């Protein structure tokens, strides 16, 4: 949406249905004001979040990606966030190797009852991304040869 360029950056969130999506709902119900940049993609579990989704989003236009699941031990599917933790940690360490600031990707745990915490996560992450500025400045060039 070009008319909002300059006001917002592109932040993609992958939220597990049971905890963090609920936490975002709780924040909404509690009318905790938050920056508007974040767009939420609902997934059943943080374990569903293939790190490649994060890469895909970052390479294709996102300025920041947030993954949030249930707190460790509190996964609705018992182990999903344990896998997510390992895989996303690996990714977080890898991104800067490719020249992508690791601060553009954050993964955390927010439960369905933690509306206030969710507000803080969104506010802080959005602030951090704005401090970093847009990730995609130049148009991708297409090769001929």
């Amino acid at each position, binding site marked *: 949406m070009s008319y909002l360029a300059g006001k917002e950056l592109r932040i993609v969130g992958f939220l597990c249905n049971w905890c963090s999506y609920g936490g975002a709902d709780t924040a909404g119900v509690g009318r905790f004001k938050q920056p508007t940049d974040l767009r939420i993609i609902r997934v059943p579990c943080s374990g569903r979040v293939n790190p490649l989704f994060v890469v895909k989003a970052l*390479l294709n236009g996102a300025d920041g990606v947030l993954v949030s699941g249930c707190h460790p031990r509190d996964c609705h599917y018992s182990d999903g966030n344990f896998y997510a933790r390992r895989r996303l940690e*690996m990714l977080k360490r*890898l991104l800067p190797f490719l*020249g992508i600031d690791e601060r553009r990707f954050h993964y*955390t745990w927010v439960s369905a009852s933690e509306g206030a915490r969710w507000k803080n996560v969104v506010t802080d992450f959005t602030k951090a991304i704005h401090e970093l500025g847009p990730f995609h400045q130049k148009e991708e*060039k297409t090769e001929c040869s």
Partner: protein
Amino acid sequence: MFIEKLKEAVRKILPEVDVVIGYRQGFDPLHATPYFLDKPEQVDQLIWNPLCVQNLCSYIPFLKGKVGVIVKGCDSRAIVQYMQEKLITRENIKVIGVPCLRVISVKKVMAAINQQTVQEVTFEGDNIIVKIPEGPKTIPSADVAPRKCATCQLATPLQYDVLAGEAIQSNKPQDTFEETKEFEKLSLEERRAYWEKEFDRCIRCYACRNACPMCICQDKCIAESRDPHWTSQRANVTEKAMFHMIHGLHLAGRCISCEECERVCPMDIPVAKIKKKISMDLKELFGYEAGMNPDDTPPMYTFKVEEATIEEHEI
């Protein structure tokens, strides 16, 4: 002669298996090529020298029946990793181990002789002597060895049913990931520019993927499929980078550092660098090295309830 011992080992195993994979001379003296043999008279075509670089294990998961395979120390990690991931039935594989202290990178030799046609290759002590139109050129093997050899700990394969020759100890220092750490000293912008330049050359021939012993999806790779549709066929850096991320992340905790991906790249892209970085991190995080112990579980396919090494990140 070592080659006779090797041939002897192959002859012995041949009746027990459907096929043996070894090396024979390729299209020029600098190139060895994989050789699939099932008849005793073919055994004499076998060669063994430091130019036998290909990791022959890569073929195993796709072959039916019993297979004999000539395996170097570095290659043997593939066998171990297959065992970890239950991708082979170990009993069906006859591993003919070969002790090896160092192979030679064809790319490095070619660079040293300015890409000229090679007429003859001989080995003398720790040197390779390459005859080119202007005469023989002697190059110390160490100068043209692939980087994996500099820190090789597996002079003798981890797994073998028969060992051609004597078991030997590695004489190399442990890998301390110096190169990876050195690269990390560059600024983010420099790193990004580096990869944009490198990936830009990629022609998406998938040689890196197809030569990888751990890329078991092969034809079903998501880099080409429409369902799921992870990448487009656009030839831009984004899509190329996406493919290499798919490759790298699918190998996280599985890459055995044979560096075949980088060896086979016709565009000379340092694709193993990414995998090495992941290996370094996973070693640090989980103390895990792929292809070392058949009883391990790759770290991305397991977890601990308390992860001592993973701290929660603050924004």
